[in-house]
């Protein structure tokens, strides 16, 4: 098992390196842009004195690599910002200050994170159930009407942008049929029931497109496994088709699905931005769109890094899970 532990460790180290490289790229792209960084960071309504103060706090006279180093220091050890009269402390994972909203970027993100996590995690459960279920069903009924119908539905699901799905669902279910109230976020700790009701439609919206993708993938993976020799042996022994598809083939087909689910996390996060904006859920995505619109650079940089963190971690976990699930994987 030491080989495996080593693999997991190396993969974790790789993830840290990727994150570092990502932070360099992001930092350079956003803070080495043409134009007055202090003015952009501070916002259009800042007075010259305020802009000057921001320039000093960002240490804009330092070369770029030093500023980047300070930024990293802030993430690891926290940072103090002097606001002229007082000193504001920004504790350990410090991503800087948003001068436009006068808050620490990390605090903004932390207040929005539960909403986005609720959305993505709930939707992920749904799309895995729906997607894998549909994929298994169409592999089982291959060549029949059920499969063709499911194939059509999945294709439609892949071709419909997530915000169109959301718009239609919202208008039909909340507007016309009035089956559900318009989505609203209630904190899980406040009222779990309201939390689930309020997120039901966003969950489905985000999950449907992803489920279609996973249905396709599961079906393809299942068909591949069904063509393998050991399945033929099961057939020869008279194992029922139902048990072959539902148990033996599914087991073989699951490994790539697990790996892809985590890789797919990134695209789901992108979808979450749209779902949050559409339904007005106060999550990271909505905040990011707002920050982009008002060009609040520290918030944009912080959000991209936090999202990048989640995606990189998800990918690393996926690789490790994949190695656990499929012993043919060579650990390098």
């Amino acid at each position, binding site marked *: 098992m030491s080989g495996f532990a080593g693999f997991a460790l190396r993969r974790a180290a790789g993830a840290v390196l990727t994150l570092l490289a990502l932070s360099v790229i992001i930092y350079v792209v956003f803070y080495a842009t043409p134009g007055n960084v202090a003015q952009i960071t501070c916002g259009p309504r800042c007075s010259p004195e305020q802009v000057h103060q921001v320039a000093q706090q960002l240490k804009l006279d330092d070369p770029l690599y030093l500023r980047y180093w300070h930024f990293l220091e802030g993430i690891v050890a926290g940072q103090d910002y002097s606001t002229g009269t007082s000193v504001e402390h920004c504790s350990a994972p410090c991503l800087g200050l948003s001068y436009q909203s006068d808050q620490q970027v990390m605090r903004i993100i932390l207040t929005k994170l539960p909403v986005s996590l609720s959305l993505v995690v709930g939707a992920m459960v749904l799309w895995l159930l729906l997607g894998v279920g549909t994929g298994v069903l169409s592999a089982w009924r291959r060549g029949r009407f059920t499969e063709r119908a499911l194939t059509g539905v999945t294709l439609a699901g892949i*071709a*419909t*942008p997530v915000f169109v799905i959301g718009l239609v669902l919202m208008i039909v279910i909340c507007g016309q049929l009035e089956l559900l109230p318009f989505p609203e976020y209630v904190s899980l700790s406040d009222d779990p029931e309201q939390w689930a009701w309020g997120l039901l439609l966003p969950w489905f919206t985000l999950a449907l497109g992803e489920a279609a993708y996973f249905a396709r993938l599961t079906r393809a993976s299942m068909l591949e496994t069904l063509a393998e020799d050991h399945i033929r042996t099961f057939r020869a022994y008279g194992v029922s088709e139902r048990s072959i598809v539902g148990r033996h083939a599914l087991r073989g087909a699951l490994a*790539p699905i697990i790996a892809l689910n985590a890789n*797919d996390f990134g695209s789901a996060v992108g*979808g979450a*931005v749209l779902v949050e904006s559409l339904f007005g859920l106060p999550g990271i995505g909505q905040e990011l*769109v707002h920050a*982009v619109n008002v*060009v609040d650079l520290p918030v944009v940089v912080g959000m991209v890094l936090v999202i990048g963190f989640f995606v990189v971690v998800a990918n690393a976990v996926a690789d490790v899970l994949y190695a656990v699930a499929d012993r043919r994987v060579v650990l390098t």
Partner: protein
Amino acid sequence: MSEAFVAVEAAGTGTQPVPAVSGARQFWRRLRVQRAALVAAIVVALLVLVALAAPLLTAIEGQDPTTYHPSLVDSARGGVPLGSFGGIGGDHWLGVEPQTGRDLFARLVYGARVSLGVALAATAVQVAIGVVVGVAAALGNRWVDQLLSRITDIIVAMPLMIMALALLAVVPSSFPRPVLVALIIGFVAWGTIAKITRAQTLTLKELDYVAAARLSGWGTLRIARRELLPGLAAPVITYAALMVPANITIEAALSFLGVGVKPPTPSWGQMLTSADVWYQAAPQYLLLPAGALFLTVLALTVLGDGVRTALDPRAVSRLRVGTGRKGEAKADGGVGTVDAGVAKPAKTVGAGVEKEVRS
């Protein structure tokens, strides 16, 4: 047995690249036998035609996409279009936009220009960067390869939408918006093409004819251009075909969020931004752009699947090209029945994992 079959057979063994010129004919033949892909190709051709002929079509209608018609909306009721069915009539074939009274038909057909134009331009950027980075990584020394491959990994790992959104914040707004959106989508999503190109180039450069070119004293650039690029065409075209619908969706999404293509330039995604408010008074304001998006992405996705099947050497036995018999012309690779390979663009299907799997 047709010559197309033989040529593909040869390509499948990996000893000889498909000649570029006769490849085009053979490709078309293998695409044509897939009924769904053929229908999709026709739909796409029509959409492109509509986009190109947008000025002509609106001239026939006698409208343009940007003129406000305040007299056609009821300002007392918040700008609901006057007349039945959202103002549909002889002057305005599909009605007018709520609040502004701009002609909906004109905005829809000009929106097709933006959608297809941005998506195709973005795909071109993705292919250009991806191929250059991929070839450079495969032909360069160990350090070049390491550096480029790591950067590619990061590009692949980052969510497209997030990166595109973030970049839109820093680029000066003086840039023409559709061009900007196309460039940004292009710059954040070339990773997978680079990976595919690198892998394919590594295979190709070991082949005898490349070695022969090297021995006869050709430089790296000349070898890359003359000997490697033709061999890269099939995988790159396959992936590019799948990228186009993905790019359409991303442009629509960015414009829907209000950070992509901005008014007065019409875009389908942008039209949907406020469509939910008006769905009762003017349902076509929601249904038309949504339907246009759906149809376009669907047709391009099916076409992309068809292109992949047509270029996949392994699919040759399923396609039975060129026998001309009716029953056989029905290809197995119809709507969504293609199993292998990349199922969804902008994804790295097992890319990071595949290399670790012992075959």
